[in-house]
C-alpha cells in the first residue's frame, strides 16, 4: 500500500499537479499554500488568535461556503425550472412530487435563509471586534455591499417558486418602491416631475414599474428576477467576494490586535 502511494506521488502526473512534497515541513507547507490558487487566498502564516472559533465565529467562512452550496444546488435546480408564469409553479411542485428524498430545493432554501443569518452575524462580529477600523475601512464597505447583495439574491429568489407566499411577499416588498421620493408615482415630489401639465412619473413608468417590468408582479417580473437571481447578482457577488478576501490579506490579514 505504502509502495503504491509512493509510486503515485512520484509519478509525473502527480508531480505536474502538486509541485511540492508532502506538507509536513515548513518549506512544503508554505508551498502548499503558495502554489494553489484557491489556498492562496490565505497567507502562509496566520495569527493564532485570528483562527480561534471563539474569536471569529467562522461566520465569514460559512457565508462563503453557503454561497458555494447555493451556487451548486441552484445550478442543478436550473435544469428543472422554467421561469414562465404557467410552468414555474408546476416545475417546483414536480420537484417535490417526483423526486424521492430530494434535498436540492431544501438545501437551496434553508441555505439561503442561513446565509442571511451568517452574513449578519459576520458583520456583528466584525463590528464588535472593531475590525472595520483602519486599515480595513474599505473592506468594511465592500462587506456592506455584499450584505445588500445577499439580501437582493434572497429577495429575487423568493419569487421563483411562484406560489402565493412568493408573489405576495414580493408584492409587499416592491410596493415600497411606489413611494420612492420623486421616482415613485406615490412618492413625495413625484407630482413636481411634470412638464406642461404632463406627469412624467405615473404607475406605468415609475421605479416600481422598472423593477417589475409591469404594473404588478407578473410574468415580466418573474423573468427579470430569474435572470438577476441566477446570473446578475451572483456574478457581482462573486467578483466582490474576490475583492473582499483579497483585501483581508492586503489590509493586515485576519483581524487581530495591531
Amino acid at each position, binding site marked *: 500500500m505504502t509502495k503504491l502511494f509512493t509510486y503515485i506521488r512520484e509519478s509525473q502526473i502527480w508531480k505536474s499537479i502538486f509541485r511540492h512534497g508532502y506538507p509536513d515541513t515548513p518549506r512544503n507547507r508554505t508551498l502548499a499554500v503558495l502554489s494553489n490558487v484557491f489556498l492562496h487566498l490565505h497567507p502562509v502564516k*496566520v495569527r493564532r488568535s485570528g483562527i480561534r472559533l471563539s474569536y471569529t465565529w467562522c461566520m465569514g467562512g460559512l457565508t462563503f461556503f453557503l454561497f458555494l452550496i447555493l451556487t451548486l444546488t441552484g445550478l442543478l435546480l436550473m435544469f428543472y425550472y422554467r421561469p414562465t408564469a404557467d410552468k414555474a409553479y408546476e416545475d417546483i411542485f414536480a420537484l417535490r412530487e417526483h423526486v424521492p428524498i430530494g434535498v436540492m430545493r431544501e438545501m437551496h432554501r*434553508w441555505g439561503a435563509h442561513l446565509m442571511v443569518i451568517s452574513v449578519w*452575524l459576520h458583520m456583528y462580529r466584525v463590528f464588535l471586534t472593531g475590525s472595520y477600523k*483602519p486599515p480595513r475601512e474599505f473592506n468594511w464597505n465592500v462587506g456592506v455591499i455584499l450584505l445588500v447583495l445577499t439580501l437582493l439574491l434572497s429577495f429575487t429568489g423568493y419569487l421563483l417558486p411562484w*406560489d402565493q407566499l412568493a408573489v405576495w411577499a414580493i408584492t409587499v416588498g416592491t410596493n415600497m418602491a411606489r413611494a420612492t421620493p420623486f421616482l415613485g408615482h406615490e412618492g413625495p415630489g413625484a407630482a413636481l416631475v411634470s412638464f406642461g401639465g404632463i406627469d412624467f412619473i405615473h404607475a406605468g413608468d415609475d421605479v416600481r414599474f422598472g423593477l417589475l417590468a409591469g404594473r404588478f408582479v407578473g410574468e415580466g417580473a418573474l423573468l427579470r428576477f430569474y435572470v438577476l437571481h441566477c446570473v446578475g447578482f451572483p456574478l457581482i457577488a462573486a467578483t466582490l467576494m474576490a475583492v473582499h478576501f483579497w483585501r483581508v490579506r492586503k489590509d493586515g490579514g485576519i*483581524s487581530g490586535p495591531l
Partner: protein
Amino acid sequence: MHLALATLLGGGGAPVHDGPIAAGLKNFSNWLTEPTRYSVASILAVVGILYFRKFFAQVWVITAFFALSTAYFVFAFQDPNFNAIITKPDNVPIVILFASVIFFTWLALRRAVINDERTKRGEPTLEGELAKQKVFTWPDLVYTELICLILFTAGMLVWSILITAPIEEPAATARTPNPSKAPWYFLGLQELLVYFDPWLAGVVLPSFIVVGLCAIPYLDLNPKGNGYYTFEERPFAIAFFWVGFLLFWVSFVILGTFLRGPNWSFFGPFEYWDLHKLEPMVNVDLSTYFWVELLDKPRPDNAFVREAPGIVALLGYFLVLPPLFGKTVMKKMVEEMGMVRFNVFMHLFLWFVLIPVKMGLRWTVNLKYFIGMPEYFFNV
C-alpha cells in the same frame, strides 16, 4: 388577557384545558409581547445587560437562560397556536437566528468583560496574547475550515431531509393572503410601516441604514478596540450597535414573524390568529393637536399653513440641533471629527433617534404624523 383566554378555549385547533399555572404563564407571555411592552422591555434588557455585564457574562447565566428557554419551548409546544407559528418550516431559521444571536452576543460580552479586566490589570488581552504567535495556514487553518465545512454540510443535509421545503397554492393575483408579509429579513422595515409611511420606512430609512453602515469606519475615530473584544474602550459604539442591530433589526424581525398576524395586528404567542381582531385606529396628526386642541380653531385649508407646526418642529430638529449640540455639549466631538464628519454623524444619528421618538409618541399621545400632507404624499 381575556381575549387570549377566550381564543384558547374557543378557537385554534384542539381545545386546550390549562391548569392555573399554565394559563397564567401563557397570559403573561401574551401580555408581555404586546409591541409597546415588548419594545420597552427589550430596551431595558439591553441597558440592563450592558450595565450588569459582569453578571451576565458568567457561563451559568447563559446556560440557565438556554435551559429555561428550552423548558419554555417544550411547554409552549403543547399549545396549538404557539406550535402552529413556531413549527412553520420557514420559521425554523428565525428560531436559529434568535438562539445564535443571543449566544454570540453573550460570547462577545464575556470576552469583552475578560479583556477589560485584563487591561485594567495591565495584562494583554486574550487575543493579544495569542496574536504574537504565528502558525502555518496549512495545516492549522485549513483543517479548521475543513472540519467546519464537513460538520456544516452534514447538518444541512439532515435538516433538508427532515423538513421539506414548503410550497403554497399557485400564485393568484386576485386573492390576497392575510397577512401578506415581506420576506422575513425585511420584517423589521415592515414593522416600521406601523409608524412611518412607505417612503420613509421602505425607501429612505433603508437607504440611510446602508449609508450609515458604510460611514461607520469614517465616523468612528476611536483607535482602540481594533482586533479584540472590549466594551469599556468603546462603550458608545458598542451600545449604539446593540440598539441598532439587536433591537431595531433582529428583535423586530422576530416580532414581525411570530407576533404579527392578519391585518398586521398584534397577536401574543399563544393567541389564535383571528381574522376579525380589530384594533381601534385613533391616531391624530400634530396639526390637529395644534389647531384644534390647542387653539380651538378649524385646521387651515392651505396645507403648508396647516402643517406649519410640524414643519417648524422637524426643521428645528434637523437644522437647529446639530449646531446647537456642536457649540455646547459636543464641542469636543466637533474638534476631533471636523465639521463634515460631525454633521454627517449628527444627521444619521437624528434619523435613527427619530424612530424611537415617533414610536414613543404613537404609544403615548397617538401621534399619527408630524407633517401630514397626503396631497403631496409627504407624510412624516
